Structures are given as C-alpha cells and as structure tokens.
C-alpha cells in the first residue's frame, strides 16, 4: 500500500502555512511538555489539583468498576466453594476450634496489656477510623503505583493518612480532592514503611519494588535472621502508621534482607479504611524540624577522604 498523498499541499499558500503551523505547535508542545515534566519531578504536588478534578469527573466509572470487581470475585469464589465444600468445611471447623482457643488467650493478654500500660502510664491515642471507601482505580499501565479512593476531603480524608484493608496495609493518602483521593500503594518505590517482625519484634523497613512485591531491609547488619513465611507488621515508628497492621510475608531470603509479598493485595480488598495519622504532633514536629534544618549537607569532596 502506498502512503496517502494528502500531505502535499501543492501551491496553496493557506495549506502550506497550515502544515507549517502544525509543526510549530507540535514542537512547542513537546518543549512545553518537557518543561511541565521538570516542574512535576521537582515538585510532585504541583498538578495535584488538576489531577484531583480529573478523578472527580471519572469517579462514577470507577465506582461501577469496583462494584463489578466485588460481584465478579464473589461469583468465582462461589463456584470454587462448590467444588471444595467438604474439604473446606472440615478445614474450617479445625481452624475455628484453634481460633477460639487463641481468642481466649488474646483476651487474657489484652487485659494484662491494659493493666501493665495503666501501671506505666502510657495512653494510646484514639484510633477511630476516618471513613471506609472503595478503591476505584489504579495506575495499571504506569511503573508508579497509585490507586484512587472513592472518598475525599468532604469525608475528612487528608494527605498523609494511612489506608488499610481487613487483611493489612494498603498505603497512604498523598493527594485529596473533595470526593476522591490518591493513595500511594505500599508497592511504590517511594513508599517506605517501618515494620517489625511479628514473632520477635525484629526491626526493619519495607520498600516497594513496583512489581507487586516489596523489599524488606533490616536495620541491623550481620547474619540474616529472616526465614520464609515471616510476617512483618507496622511498628509505629515515625508516627505515621499505627502499629500492628500486617504488611508483608517473606517469600525469598537474600543475603542482606528479603523479598516479600503483600499481606493485603489491593485487588482483593473490597472496602478499605482510612485511619488518622498515628502520632500527628510527632509527624508535624519532625516535618518542622526538617524544614528548619534545611537540606542535608552534601559530603564535601576534600573532607571525606580517609
């Protein structure tokens, strides 16, 4: 097939000028885009209001999609359950018996914990959830990992607040519009969460790898104490995430840490809960002191040698 000859204007001045203007606008658009790109890399929040307005407009489509997701999953789950009903019933009965025993132990421990905290004079802040909402969209084609939440500032959602599902941590709010908010998922490389191993409190932090898994880095170097199947939960350090929310399960042990899978896959979460910032005064004080101190001093070339 030969290409179409419609780009040859002939002797028409008007058509020639039209094509020339097209080139000028295209190149100008490229340059303007490059400028906007630099602005948004230097200051990621620069265009948040435009993005917020855009997701407000697309919100009905996202909510319809979220409904479909819940319905589709329940259909598949129902078909699966039909095939495994007997085996599942036996397994669940065993699990319930074990869980009942565990629950009694937990109640006893909780009571003891409360008494001990009262003795020490520690007051836990009120952790009343701010709102429950659906995840209505995600950046499935980009290497960044954001999701869009169907609640915004009118429900009390503010940037910085942690988001969790029933199974574990989802991420934190980074931009909030009137009726939608943008959530930075735990799998985004920008999201660093302080955690501890549930079994013994071993401190670590997790960092997204952008491919659905997360990297677990230990604070103490030395021989690697991680085992496959270790569960990590938030530690409450940093004051942003409340302690005790499951984050990751170790699936692969590396020489200086591990790689884990999410405790809560955002695709399976029907509803998510937005929580208040765990220690808001502490986070504010930290931000203020960082602002007051200015950027970290760069290592000078002459002074650092040894």
């Amino acid at each position, binding site marked *: 097939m030969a*290409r*179409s000859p419609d780009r040859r204007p002939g002797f028409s001045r008007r058509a020639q000028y039209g094509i020339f203007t097209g080139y000028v606008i295209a190149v100008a658009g490229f340059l303007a885009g490059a400028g*906007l*790109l630099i602005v948004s890399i230097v200051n990621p929040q620069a265009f948040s209001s435009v993005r917020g307005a855009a997701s407000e407009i697309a919100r009905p489509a996202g909510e319809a999609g979220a409904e479909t997701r819940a319905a589709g999953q329940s259909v598949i789950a129902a078909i699966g359950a039909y095939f495994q009903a007997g085996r599942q019933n036996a397994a669940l009965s065993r699990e319930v018996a074990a869980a009942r025993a565990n629950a009694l132990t937990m109640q006893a421990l909780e009571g003891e914990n409360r008494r001990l905290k009262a003795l020490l004079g520690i007051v836990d802040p009120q952790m009343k959830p701010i709102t429950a909402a659906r995840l209505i969209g995600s950046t499935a084609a980009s290497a960044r990992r954001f999701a869009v939440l169907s609640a915004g500032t009118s429900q009390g959602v503010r940037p910085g607040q942690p988001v969790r599902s029933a199974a574990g941590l989802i991420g934190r709010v980074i931009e909030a519009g009137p009726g939608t908010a943008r959530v930075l*998922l735990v799998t985004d490389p920008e999201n660093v969460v302080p955690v501890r191993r549930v079994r013994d409190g071993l401190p670590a932090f997790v960092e997204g790898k952008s491919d659905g898994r997360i990297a677990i880095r230990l604070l103490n170097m030395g021989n690697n104490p991680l085992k496959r199947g270790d569960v990590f939960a938030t530690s409450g350090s940093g004051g942003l995430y409340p302690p005790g929310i499951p984050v990751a399960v170790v699936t692969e042990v590396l020489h200086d840490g591990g790689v884990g899978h999410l405790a809560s896959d955002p695709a399976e979460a029907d509803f998510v809960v937005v929580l208040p910032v765990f220690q808001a005064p502490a986070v504010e004080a930290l931000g203020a002191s960082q602002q007051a101190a200015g950027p970290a001093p760069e290592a000078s070339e002459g002074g650092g040698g040894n």
Partner: protein
Amino acid sequence: MPFPRLPDLPSLPRRPEDLVPQRINRAPSPLVASGLPWVSVMLASLAVYSPVIASAPVVPPLAFMVFLAWRMLRPSLLPLWAGLPLGAFDDLYSGQPFGSGIVLWSAAMLVMDTVDNRLLWRSFVADWAVASLLMTGYLVLSAGIAGLAAAYPLPLVIGPQLLVTLALYPLVTRAVALLDRVRLLPLRTV
C-alpha cells in the same frame, strides 16, 4: 410472556454500515467523523478506572496504542500537535508525572511524520514493526521518567507488559478500523 427464543431476538448487523438502512440523501455527521478519534483515545485513557486494582504494571498503555493506531490508519486525521492535548489528558489519569505523556506523545507524532516521509510503501508488517519500536520506546521512557520521579533506579518490571503490548497491537488496530467504519456512517440528512 414466554422467554424469547434466540432467532426471535433482533441481532446486531454484521457490518456497521447496516446500522443505517437508508443511505440516499445522507452524509456522515461532521461531529462524529472528526471527533470519534479524540473521544476513543480519551476513553482508552480512562481504562485505569477498570475493575482491576493492579499492584504491578501489567495493563498495556491502551490510550497510546489507540492513538498510534489512528495515526497509522488515517495519517492526516489527527493533527500533528494532537499529542499535546491527548497526552495531557492521559497524564491526568496514568499516574505518570504530569508532562511525560505530553512529551512522549508529541515525540511519537513527530517520529511518525518522519517515518511517513521515509517509508514509501506501507504494509501490515511494516506498520506493526514501527508501532513496536514506538511502543517499546514509550514504555521504557515512561518507566525511566517514573523512576526519576520516585528517585529509584529504572525498575525492570515492564517486560511482561511490553510483550502483551506488542502482541495486542494488531487487535487494537482492528478495533480502530471498526471505529473508523462507524465514524463515517451516514447519520446526517442532507
């Protein structure tokens, strides 16, 4: 009332042209004829509001593929500067730093213009090859820009996404070709 049997149901016509029975004294609606490419690309940008909440980049960049397919099928339908508004719209939803879509889509339009001047003969395979190069460049540069914005080295997680994208492109061109026939339906009475 008995349940309608399958042959009784009104069936969709096999060709989009059959949707409009009368063709005499009718012409394509100018709004649909020139607006459908823009609307279809913008709807593809909204595909992130799909039921799937992905924790890894797995979905092909549908909007860019539709955009490229329109450009290949009808080279003069979208103006040369169409990457500016359509890329900006895609940036609002894609999660990339704002501006990356504008830059990459505008660059793709300029590259396609050069390709049109160089390749005198076009074929399915040549189109697919050019589109594959453009989409690979788009995905790699997008991931690079995203990595730059997250201050994280380029994550090599786009491999599966890239393969799906390259394999899916002919299907997208078929869908766009169908839309092109819908675009020119004689809807307006003259």
